[in-house]
């Protein structure tokens, strides 16, 4: 019988060895998949045993932890010391709700579950010691003082401010109004939905700076002007005739109240058409270039793709034409009205971050840098795991074109529609925008600009400001906010 006993032993050993293989599968191969499952109740609780990494900017804590013992186990709950200041960018991490913002997209780093060798070793050692796992700290590029100024300037208005360094792409301000207190997300989420502002719905959770879609109005003329100059068909000195309107499909499209100067300019250069924001000129440029040429130029600035940033993909929306709530790219020229497109109407919708990128690219002599908000990720041991190095995203326009448009935008602030953004001692170039929303007297107003010291160096900052439901123009409402943000970001230069 011994032969049979040996064979049966073999079967028994194979059965039990299969269990070790299966255990290995679930604890290693399938582990990440299991942890990522939406209904993983264990993971949802277990993540609270991890001391999440802190999020900080300019030396201030934006997200930290409070230790509380539950069921004889120390758990770490999130607190946000700066409250509403950076609520949409940083987001929140709670037991009851899905995470948002950087708390979501950087969750692996913040919980030290990113599998770099050093964090894996740190994590294993901490586990062996019975210490709570400690996540990696995240340092942001945000300037909290400027962020505060931006939020304060927005006040009860609905809107957003995006500011970044054109030379590197480092994001300095991402303010969205109204904001909310993320400390309420865990226990009193209802209070957040009761937040009121000058718009309905107030949507405080929406990061308007990266996911707010607005008609760009005349700020888009910067893109059209880029397309015009890049095409070689136009120069800043190209002459147009402005009758006060532009004829499209046999109808007159009138110039807008946003423009400065007389109602009808008569003979005007392209240069001055941008300075005074003359719709009829851009309407004719659009008709001459065609919709595709303008859209292609927009694409080169980054339209039709969510702008790169470390926040979750679903919290960043692409800019472009939208139809029935979806991004839309025409198949034929005739599907888009090139004249209205050229001065930023049509079905164009853009995000403040994208428009800040446009201003930054022009200001930086045509080199568009990849925007980033995370400067460094540091392990609990103090080692830098990730350090963001500035990189070029695109070259949407040539250096010559960029400098020609820079000159126009400088004159916008000097003597055109954006004089409210002028700061003595600084070189500020901008473009205003006032887009009709369909509700009479209610406009979406814009100001995009670049600014830097008046010493011939490249601009240090690019800003986009958008406001919802304004009765006045972009030059009157958005430009002053941009000025305050610039003054906060470049304080020494601003006070000679």
């Amino acid at each position, binding site marked *: 019988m011994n032969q049979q006993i040996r064979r*049966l032993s073999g079967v028994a050993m194979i059965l039990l060895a299969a269990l070790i293989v299966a255990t290995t599968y*679930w604890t290693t191969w399938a582990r990440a998949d299991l*942890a990522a499952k939406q209904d993983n109740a264990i*993971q949802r609780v277990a993540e609270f045993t991890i001391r999440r990494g802190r999020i900080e900017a300019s030396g201030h804590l934006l997200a930290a932890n409070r230790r509380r013992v539950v069921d*004889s186990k120390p758990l770490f709950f999130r607190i946000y010391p700066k409250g509403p200041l950076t609520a949409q960018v940083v987001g929140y991490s709670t037991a009851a709700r899905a995470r948002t913002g950087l708390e979501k997209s950087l969750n692996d780093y913040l919980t030290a579950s990113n599998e770099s060798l050093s964090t894996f070793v740190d994590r294993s050692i901490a586990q062996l010691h019975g210490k709570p796992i400690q996540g990696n700290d995240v340092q942001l590029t945000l300037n909290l003082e400027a962020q505060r100024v931006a939020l304060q300037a927005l006040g009860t208005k609905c809107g957003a401010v995006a500011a970044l360094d054109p030379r590197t792409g480092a994001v300095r301000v991402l303010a969205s109004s109204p904001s909310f207190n993320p400390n309420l997300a865990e226990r009193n989420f209802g209070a957040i939905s009761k937040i009121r502002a000058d718009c309905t719905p107030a949507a405080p959770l929406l990061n308007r700076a990266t996911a707010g879609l607005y008609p760009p109005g005349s700020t888009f003329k910067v893109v059209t002007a880029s397309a015009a100059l890049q095409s070689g068909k136009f120069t800043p000195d190209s002459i147009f005739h402005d009758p006060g309107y532009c004829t499209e499909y046999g109808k007159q499209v009138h110039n807008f109240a946003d423009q400065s100067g007389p109602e009808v300019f008569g003979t005007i250069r392209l240069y001055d058409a941008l300075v005074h924001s003359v719709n009829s000129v851009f309407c004719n440029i659009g008709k001459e270039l065609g919709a595709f040429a303008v859209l292609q130029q927009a694409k080169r600035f980054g339209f039709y793709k969510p702008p790169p940033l470390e926040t979750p993909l679903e919290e960043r929306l692409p800019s472009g034409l939208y139809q029935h709530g979806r991004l839309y790219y025409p198949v034929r020229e005739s599907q888009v009205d090139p004249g209205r497109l050229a001065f930023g109407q049509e079905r164009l919708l853009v995000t403040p971050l994208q428009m800040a990128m446009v201003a930054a690219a022009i200001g930086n002599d045509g080199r568009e840098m990849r925007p980033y908000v995370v400067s460094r990720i540091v392990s609990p041991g103090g080692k830098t795991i990730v350090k963001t190095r500035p990189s070029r995203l695109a070259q949407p326009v040539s250096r010559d074109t960029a400098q020609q448009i820079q000159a126009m935008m400088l004159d916008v602030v000097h003597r055109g529609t954006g004089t409210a953004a002028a700061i003595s001692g600084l070189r500020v170039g901008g473009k205003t925008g006032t887009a009709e929303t369909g509700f009479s007297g209610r406009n979406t107003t814009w100001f995009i600009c670049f600014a830097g010291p008046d010493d011939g160096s490249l601009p240090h900052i690019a800003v986009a400001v958008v406001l919802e439901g304004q009765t006045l123009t972009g030059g009157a409402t958005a430009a002053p906010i941009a000025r305050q943000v610039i003054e906060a970001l470049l304080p020494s230069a601003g006070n000679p």
Partner: protein
Amino acid sequence: MSLRNRELVNLVLVGVVGTAAFGSAWIAHTNRVSAEALVDVALIAGLFLAAHLVVRRTAAQADPTLLPLVALLTSIGLTMNFRLNPADGRRQAVWVAIGILAFALTLVLLRFDYRVLEQYRYVFGVTAIILLLLPSLPVIGQRVNGVRLWVHVGRLQFQPGEVAKLLLVLFLAGYLREKREVLAQGRLKDFGPLLVIWGAAMLVLLQTSDLGSALLYFGVFVGMLYVATDRLSYVLAGGALFVLGSGLLYSALSRVQARVIIWLHPWTDHKIPCFNGTLDYRQNCQSYQLVRSLYSIGNGGYGGTGIGRETTTTLAGTPLIPELNTDFIFSAITQGIGLIGAAGVILVFMVLVARGMRVSLLAQDGFSKLLAVGLAFGLALQTFIIVGGVLRVVPLTGITLPFVSYGGSSVLANFIALALLLLVSHRARITGAAR
């Protein structure tokens, strides 16, 4: 070193590991470090020391690894039970004490020649079938989680299947020893009693809706039949019969169907009808136990969270997985001590089974060989069915993990099985030496 001294040294090593494990759970539970934890440890250690002394007197030449391996599994089981539910942990400790008492009694009563059991084989066989049918009887039978496995007499709850398994092995060892030559010839009329067993297994399945137990009994039977007759064709025929039988019953047993569906598709992308008429994903509904158990295992990773640091409750403190200390104890263990620890536990089972098989190889007579191989293979199969179920290797069925899961009848039956293995091993060595 004598065999028994080696056993003692092994037991001391197990004691060190067990003390460390239990200490972690105790400190995590009470949130303080104190020698009080050692009182509980000392009580259990004392029990195993007593068991060791009984073995010294009654089975001095028995295999010296079996008792320490069981002690290791028992201490892991007690630690986990205490960790998950201190009250259950203490009850389990009482059951271990009773189990060791039964272990000692078995050794003492059968110390001269356990082979007297052979002559009661039909008594065992009939008793086993009666025990298996008990839970299906009205009044005393009780349905727990849709499976009839429990007998309820007054305040006492009893799961007779565990004892039935033991009796079945005893019956088969005696019966197959007697009939192996005739059975090997393959005459149809000799298969009467074996068809009865197949019928009994099917009946058990039908009555209790418990695929796991039926598979266990039938698997042990087929394994022992193969060892006795060396006919692979019987194994294949037996397997075919079981598949055929359960296939026929499958459509009739919604419980078994549900188990298989959960096994094949624990996660759904669309909502399905749930218990109380609501719609939900299956992972939140029928299969939530299995799915959460897998999450628990995944959370353990390589090294585990550490004993006492497992996540078993919500942030408010309510349990996340029901039956965690019985059916799902392996997933709690894996979360606590990770892949390394859980693989270690399975290795302990492998060594235990291998030593049991060795006992069978060394035994001199057919009854002893069949008894030992039946017990060892039963242990392996039971471990495979429950752990495999938890790991989604096979459909999940509610049977206990021997020596580890919470449950009195299981502990009792398994300790008696251990005593029988030691007796066989002892006899094999003394007769082998005498020859």
